[in-house]
């Protein structure tokens, strides 16, 4: 009878099948206007945040608007041409005249040092001397800090908040997308054809991969916008300190996201109708909130932060924040990453089990224990 058997094509590999599933997930998502709109608004939001932070720091687009200063004699040399537009004048009187006429923002004149004015330098302005000018001319003592780079207070808070927010937003957005896609296949019954064609693990893997790639692309776009935004607004110092933690954040994010994606898929497979998705994935949504609120409230508490940086769900946020402030030893992110990896494997196996056990079940919500029994 074997003569009746048509020529079997080469067996497609698990990888290529996984990629097929992932590819479909991505093209469908990219065609959805709702998805494109929400991604675009998230990026705009980040851009606005970066710009606002730039203006709040007082820099603004300072490069474009130099302070115009009139200077008489040798004092002109001490003014940095990057910050100031210096106009050399012949006498102190000429300098005063230019200020009065409003042609310059301020003037600097040098006189004989007196008891009252030991440097002999005087700044002349209409109503208020520009801060940039007075601080450029101010003598400051050398400062030596012993505790790391000593970043504390608001910066620490915002840094933690930013990592936490990006992680939470991406996980919730893409997590619910994965959940809906799982339930769509159940509610349209297409899942039975899929199960008869490819293994459930491949189906789950493809879904997680496709949506994860989209999430990574979104985070990469956000990071690019943030970096370009920071340098355009002259916040280079902040940028320099953020580099390494951002790389760690990306590494942790990739594995942390896969962990959550598998959980979202597994839990969503317990229900068969779109209306029930919300309640089914509530437990994971709560897990996603933990790192966000954890770092937002406890970023000054070393014990809590250390714990958060090791727990798989909060490590993607906790560890980069600790690294940013130099609180973590070099080996700590590696240990946390190892813990995360082991959890990812365990959770994927568990999710595949739930997924397989519940895909053919239709009707009301399946209990977790029933799904695991298969």
């Amino acid at each position, binding site marked *: 009878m074997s003569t009746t058997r048509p020529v079997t094509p080469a*067996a497609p590999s698990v990888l290529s099948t996984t990629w097929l599933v992932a590819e479909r997930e991505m093209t469908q998502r990219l065609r959805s206007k709702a998805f494109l709109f929400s991604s675009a608004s998230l990026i705009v939001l980040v851009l606005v945040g970066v710009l606002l932070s730039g203006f709040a720091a007082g820099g603004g687009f300072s490069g474009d608007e130099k302070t115009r200063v009139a200077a008489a004699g040798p004092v002109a040399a001490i003014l940095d041409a990057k910050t100031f537009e210096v106009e050399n004048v012949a006498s102190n009187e000429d300098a005063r005249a230019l200020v009065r006429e409003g042609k310059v923002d301020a003037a600097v004149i040098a006189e004989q040092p007196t008891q009252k004015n030991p440097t002999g330098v005087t700044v002349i302005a209409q109503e208020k001397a520009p801060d940039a000018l007075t601080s450029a001319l101010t003598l400051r003592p050398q400062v030596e800090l012993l505790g790391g780079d000593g970043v504390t207070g608001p910066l620490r808070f915002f840094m933690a908040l930013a990592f936490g927010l990006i992680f939470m937003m991406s996980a919730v957005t893409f997590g619910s997308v994965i959940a809906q896609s799982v339930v769509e296949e159940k509610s349209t019954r297409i899942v039975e054809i899929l199960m008869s064609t490819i293994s459930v693990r491949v189906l789950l893997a493809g879904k997680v991969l496709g949506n994860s790639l989209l999430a990574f692309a979104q985070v990469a776009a956000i990071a690019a916008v943030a970096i370009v935004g920071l340098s355009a607004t002259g916040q280079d110092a902040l940028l320099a300190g953020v580099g390494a933690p951002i790389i760690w954040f990306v590494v942790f994010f990739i594995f942390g996201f896969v962990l959550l994606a598998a959980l979202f898929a597994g839990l969503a497979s317990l229900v068969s109708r779109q209306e029930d998705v919300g309640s089914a994935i509530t437990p994971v949504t709560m897990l996603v909130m933990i790192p966000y609120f954890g770092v937002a409230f406890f970023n000054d508490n070393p014990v809590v932060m250390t714990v958060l940086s090791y727990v798989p769900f909060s490590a993607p946020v906790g560890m980069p924040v600790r690294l940013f402030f130099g609180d973590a030893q070099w080996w700590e992110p590696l240990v946390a990453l190892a813990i995360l990896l082991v959890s990812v494997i365990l959770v994927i196996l568990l999710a595949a089990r739930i997924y397989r056990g519940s895909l053919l079940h239709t009707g009301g919500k399946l209990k977790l224990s029933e799904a695991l029994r298969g």
Partner: protein
Amino acid sequence: MLEIRGINKSFATRQVLTNMSFTIEPGRMTGFVGGNGAGKTTTMRILLGVLEADSGEVLLDGSPLSEQDRRRIGYMPEERGLYPKMKVAEQITYFARLHGLGAETAKRNTERLLDQLGLGERGGDTIESLSLGNQQRAQIAAALVHDPLALVLDEPFSGLDPLAVDVVLAVLKERANAGVPVLFSSHQLDIVERLCDDIVIISGGQVRAVGSAQSLRDAHRGNRFSLEGEADGGWVREVPGISVLSFDGGHVEFDADTAERAQLVLRGALDRGPVHAFTPVRPSLAQIYREVVQ
């Protein structure tokens, strides 16, 4: 040849299949008949590896069906489903690729099949924009697009108008003629009777009757005969061992206790006048079904 051998399956404490065994011959259409809850869908799911049997096996040409073979079966589940927002051609191509076809072949097969099923013009439309009948055709395309080794179709004709039944049937026949074993289930016994070469009747998770349509009819024929002559047939009622089922002038239908007794009736009829017809009455599939499932 696809063979199901000694399959048992229970859900919790309820045994749904008991020692289920039958074969699906290449080049023949096998009808799978049974009431609601008889175990048809469960059997098909086990055949496709969507469910696991507690015991028993599925064989392809004598050797256990591998994962790879399973991918090469075309399956149309009872619960229909395609991605509602995906375009028809795109979706059928996707299934072909999942089944292991290359991109080129997948595209070519999709176009050919959609044309054959009368959906050629709708390839660019989304599934949800199609009528139910056309969705059903797309579903059949999804089951056939990868040139399957065997076809397993759960109620392929439900929801189709008579013309669509013919279109789908032509496509299935073509596959069967090419040597592919085809199994399909149906509640519509008249369709099964008309289309199938072989029939498997199940009830309560067990096979009740199996064989070609002709052999089943012969086996369940009993001693029922129909006689048509010119003389009035009223006298047949008086013959011992004969019970008359219907009687209208020269036409009589009766059950005889033995075949010999039926021949006596024929002789008697010939004595009374010309006889135009004397034939055994073969039961319809519906009658056989009622008989075997009780």
